[in-house]
């Protein structure tokens, strides 16, 4: 299950990039996106993203995630990594492919009866905001740490990330506070049946080998425990006990999972490529 993610990781971090890409080796984005807590941030982001019925409907009706959840996860993570560490041409190509797919993603959400289009900047921004807010929260709490000033810088640096998929620059929040405020301002937040189905898969993926399952469940608790209160309330999730969220314990879980990931071919090498570029 980790193997496709590892292959994507290896491919998305180029050995000989033409330029430093959208962010560059000195950016906070580079530092934050290789944090060992990134998988947890991703899991939490999916939980928040799914709470927008129209964003969720687009995924539910137009993607094969249900058949191949890890393939879908690998594709998403490959996109994030390519846009982060790839050169400008690779980042723009990846974004162009996403926009091309989005053109055909439109329809009506069966539960709210509202029409949607994946090109809708509001929806794109929701997905962006949920990702950025999750990464910032998780890296701050369980990663190498993120000073508040750097967290704000991170949010601001990520503006081009939203822009290349079609969000007008001026719409994108540029600080943690602005980001949180914007998310709270989105009125249409509710878990549809499609979202509940999706999150069930996120928390307990099918076909996951027994070895990893237990660890995954523990991390899902952490994702739930760190959701914004409104998001946890929307799902009706109970707050996990405090010891399940304790930093040292969660870092031990993450360290174990990450070591499994890093021991797969290509991952350590890709990380070293990133590290060496940030040093030169």
């Amino acid at each position: 299950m980790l193997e496709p993610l590892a292959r994507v990781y290896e491919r998305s971090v180029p050995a000989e990039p033409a330029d430093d890409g959208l962010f560059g080796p000195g950016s906070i984005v580079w530092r934050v996106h290789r944090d060992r807590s990134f998988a947890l941030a991703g899991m939490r982001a999916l939980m928040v993203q799914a709470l927008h019925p129209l964003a969720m409907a687009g995924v539910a009706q137009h993607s094969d995630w249900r058949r191949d959840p890890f393939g879908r996860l690998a594709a998403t993570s490959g996109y994030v990594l390519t846009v982060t560490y790839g050169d400008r041409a690779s980042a723009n190509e990846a974004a162009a492919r996403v926009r091309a797919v989005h053109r055909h993603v439109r329809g009506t959400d069966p539960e709210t009866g509202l029409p949607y289009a994946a090109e809708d900047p509001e929806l794109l921004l929701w997905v962006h905001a949920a990702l950025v807010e999750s990464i910032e929260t998780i890296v701050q709490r369980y990663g190498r740490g993120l000073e508040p000033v750097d967290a704000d810088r991170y949010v601001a640096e990520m503006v081009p990330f939203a822009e290349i998929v079609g969000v007008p620059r001026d719409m994108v929040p540029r600080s943690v506070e602005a980001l949180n405020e914007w998310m709270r301002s989105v009125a249409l937040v509710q878990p549809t049946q499609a979202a509940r189905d999706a999150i069930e898969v996120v928390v307990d993926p099918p076909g996951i080998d027994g070895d990893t399952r237990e660890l995954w469940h523990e991390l899902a608790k952490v994702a739930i425990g760190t959701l914004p209160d409104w998001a946890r309330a929307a799902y009706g999730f109970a707050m996990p006990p405090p010891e399940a969220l304790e930093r040292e314990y969660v870092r031990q879980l993450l360290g174990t999972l990450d070591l499994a990931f890093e021991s797969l071919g290509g991952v350590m090498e890709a990380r070293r490529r990133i590290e060496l570029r940030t040093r030169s």
Partner: protein
Amino acid sequence: MKKPAAAMVQSRAGRSAALARLALRIGGRYVARSPRLVFASVERRRELRHDLALRSADDVAEELGAMRGVLMKLGQMASYVYEDLPQTVRATMGRLQQTAPPMSPEMAAGVITEELGAAPDEVFARWDPLAFAAASIGQVHRAITRDGRAVAVKVQYPGIARSITSDLRNVSLLRRLVGSAFPGLDSRSLVEELAERLEEEIDYGLEARSQELFASYYDGHPYIHVPHVVPALSTARVLTSDLVTGSRFEEMQGWSQHERDLAAETIYRFVFRSLYRIHAFNGDPHPGNYVFHGGGRVSFLDFGLTKTFTDQDLAPLVDAVRLLVFDNDADGFRDALERAGFLKAGAPVATQLVVDRFGHFYGTVLKDRPMMITPEYSSAIVRRFFDARSPLAPYSDVPRAYVVMQRINLGLYAVLGSMNATANWRRIAEEIWPFRNGPPSTPIGEAEARWEAQRAIAV
């Protein structure tokens, strides 16, 4: 590909050990991926990733904290069990440090300043700012002391002690990991032992005392050399001892079989002599800890995992050997194993079965004749040891006092096996067993006997 180890794990540990299996696969792979770094030539500096040097205590925590260091250590231990690991890897049992980048020169100098009260350039006449080897949770620098001694200075990663200690506190996770790595054995006592050993490894002061115990005992030995510690330049996080230069394991493996046999004989003598004569085991028998000088002369490094035994600990083991090998007393042999705790008393198994199964571990000394220890032989021993399907498995155990000994025994066989070493091991053992005190059986044995005679006079 056969997966006996995996099958064993499943039969015993069940679902709750899921995470453990994951971690062990990880650890095993980690070991498997770094053999080049383990088998290093004398000039190993180039193989350390100085370009990726750790620059802060925070870097160290990131690299070796959050279970990473502890899991790599466990993976190293598990590499005994997993048959599908390449032989060379099992033989090397790479240390966790080999995968971690070295410290930056500034950080290493910072540790020296904190520990020895002044910057390395002041403390030493000469100081090499780049480490030349990885070491037990740290790295090794060359230096020359102010009175002209060439030394190797082991410097510990700052903050590593704290993070390993806190990871070891996650006992429930560790117990699951260990229970799965060593099915059939008592995971509680193994975790306690692992934790205790790792905590000891963190304190270089303990290691210095152990090393000095070996160094002073072997002083003047014609074949076995243990470098002395420089106490004035050693602390809990810095260990300075005489510099050893020579050939590493990989290089020695290219020598003639005769040379390799001599080296193997010395390693064998070192292990058994240390156990029976100073009641101590250097518990980390991996080839990176040996330096070869030709003609059978070997230097032994790294005493971070030393275990000492009392007469009481040893008595049942000595009895077991004597009763099996010399007295052919099956009941007595079984009784000795029960006294040592290897076999539960009153287990409903035939004594002959006990003799057959446990007798394998004495294969090198059962018969008075030259014997080649092949890689196949050594892996068969290891497999048998961990064979949870054996009818004896429900009743056998490794008592806490012997965990390290078992580890070194298996490691020793792996090393000797990878050298394809031939000797009359029985004769050599007879020289060393205190209840035999046999005559020298080889040229090395004769030189050793002369050394011992002189030693007796000197003492």
